[in-house]
């Protein structure tokens, strides 16, 4: 019994910190029509193996993605045409970064790191809903952790084995 209590306490302490088993986004909510600093928290590698590559897919409606370089990692930006054109401070934007890849790193399974992309969330995105950024961690020998699952209507995201990091879209607060 004492072991159960000990482990519970250990769990509590662990979770009070920053340890998380899924790759997730730091901010739970973000307003549309504004910039958003997406911080991807990578808690572990692939079943014991270190992470060498982190790939983030930029969803439709998210434009002007600017990844933050990381020491020890090679940064790559995969660009392409958006499905439609978006208004960005009066300017029309129809193409840009659609995927960000940090590769050549070595993030141990028992280590933690964060990967940052600054993006603009267009007003076309639906307020009140979740916006998903699918993430893939690639490890040696073809192993991979894929955080790419998007819950279906009415599905509890906790039932997914590899839920994609998500942020809730909210209305832009009226500052003036």
């Amino acid at each position, binding site marked *: 019994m004492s072991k*159960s209590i000990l482990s519970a*306490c250990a769990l509590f302490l*662990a979770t009070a910190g920053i340890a998380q*088993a899924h790759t997730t986004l730091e901010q739970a909510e973000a307003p549309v029509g504004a910039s958003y600093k997406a911080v991807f928290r990578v808690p*572990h590698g692939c079943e014991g193996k270190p992470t060498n590559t982190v790939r983030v897919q930029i969803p439709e409606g998210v434009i002007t993605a600017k990844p933050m370089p990381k020491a020890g990692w090679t940064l790559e930006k995969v660009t392409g045409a958006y499905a439609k054109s978006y208004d960005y401070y009066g300017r029309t934007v129809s193409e840009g970064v659609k995927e960000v890849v940090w590769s050549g790193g070595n993030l141990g399974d028992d280590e933690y790191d964060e990967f940052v992309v600054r993006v603009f969330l267009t007003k076309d995105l639906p307020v009140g809903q979740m916006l998903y950024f*699918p993430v893939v961690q690639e490890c040696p020998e073809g192993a991979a952790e894929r955080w790419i699952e998007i819950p279906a209507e009415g599905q509890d995201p*906790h039932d997914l084995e590899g839920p994609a990091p998500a942020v809730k879209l909210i209305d832009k607060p009226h500052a003036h």
Partner: protein
Amino acid sequence: MQPSSMPIEAGRRAGASLLAKAIVVLALLLAGTAGARAHASLASTEPADGAVVATAPSGIALTFSEIVSPLVMRLVTPDGASRDLSDVAYSGNTLRVALPAGLADGTHVFSWRVVSEDGHPVGGSLIFSIGAPSAMPGAPTGAVDWPVRGLVWASKLTLTAAIAFGIGGVFALSWFGTGRQAGRGAAAGFVVAGMIAAVLAVGAQGLDALGEPVTSLLEPTVWRTGLATSFGRTALGLLAASAAAMIALVVPGRTGRAPALIALLGAGAAVAASGHAGSAEPQWLTRPMVALHVATMAAWIGALMPLGLALRAGGETATGLLGRFSRAIPWLLAVLLGSGAVIAFIQVETPAALVTTAYGRVLLVKLALVAALLALAAFNRWRLTPAAARDDAAARRALAGVIVVELMLAVLIFGAVATWRFTPPPRALARAAAEPAWVHLHDPRVMAAVTVNPGVAGPVAVSAALQGGDFGPFAAKAVSLVLSRPDTGIEPIRRDLIPAEDGTWRVGDLVLPLPGRWKLRVDVLVTDFERVRLEGEVELRR
């Protein structure tokens, strides 16, 4: 998060650990409010999933990606029983679960369910086999409806007796005798009984096919169904053969020979039109063999009653009948035994099946009875017939007495043969065992035809053939398989499928130890960022 499920889960396990579990849950709920949400993932196990080990391991080690707390640790043993394991030790991220001593050889399923930081339980299964993989006994199959089975058996027995003593008797009377001697009444009675039995057997067949009780015998659908089965052809053929036999009985003297021969061969053909012997491959061989077997059996056994009656009366009729029968019997027996051997060879396939299958055991009983019958026949032929042919009264009466014993043996043989209706032959069993289980799963984008081969509990290979929503080929980046049995507490078993040369995705070293319905999920990785989940169920036989 679904915190409500946790106290229920904990409450189910009474005793001293309850309080500890409640504290765990509380801590986890508090932890949950701290904002962290995470599922633990299994990093490694000892023994490895799917392992075949020589001796029973003393325990199982599960290493997770983070610290977890156990909820359920359950072992399903090769006899299909399951028990909860409570002796769990912790060391870092590793749980060590002690296994009970004296585990039997065969396949074990260890199912675990743990809770991690976010308070959400996660589970999985680990399969290991001691010695060699095995299958577990499943739920018993449906109960046997003995009244219906009895009706089917009785109608089959009556039909066989009617073919032998009725149609065979008519044949013997007109071909071995003059068509005018004693035994005509008895033969006619058997033919009529056979016609009634043929009709009743259709109803019994319908009840059996529909799984209806005897009380539904008067329902039209039962009769329509019975007639629609292959036995419908047999019943109609037997009615026609019986009609020919009746004609042979009423027309005078030797003119009855043609309808009697038609009746005999017709009865053989009718029996060959249904049943598992007639439907075995190659049919060009089995159907004629069954027809010949039945016709020669009827000619032999059918002659016994007129012979016995004539021998008891004595005189010219008896010696004439005995002489013609004695000349014909070697040929009849040659065809009878030859055709029987061919059918047995095709149906039983391996000598071992004679003792390992119900069909084989029935055949052994039948062969023992046939051997006794042949011994009596040989005794008749070489001991009693020469004397009886000289119209020696004592030999005649002895021969008539032995014939009564022969008739009783024949009825026992018919009874044994009628039970074959309920015992599929080894040939069919082997084919059924090799039959794969199959399920088709689909999504607008991708479809998977999943084959579990063989479709029986035990070691299996699973293959998935993928197609796009447009029925074209589908190139997946990776495919994985998840199988579970929520009804027996077997948590998901996961395997990555390997692409094969023929374009399918396969896994070979999988043991699904329980018969019944397995929940099956195929995860198809379409692109690096997109995965399609296909879900369904597949049924494994025992």
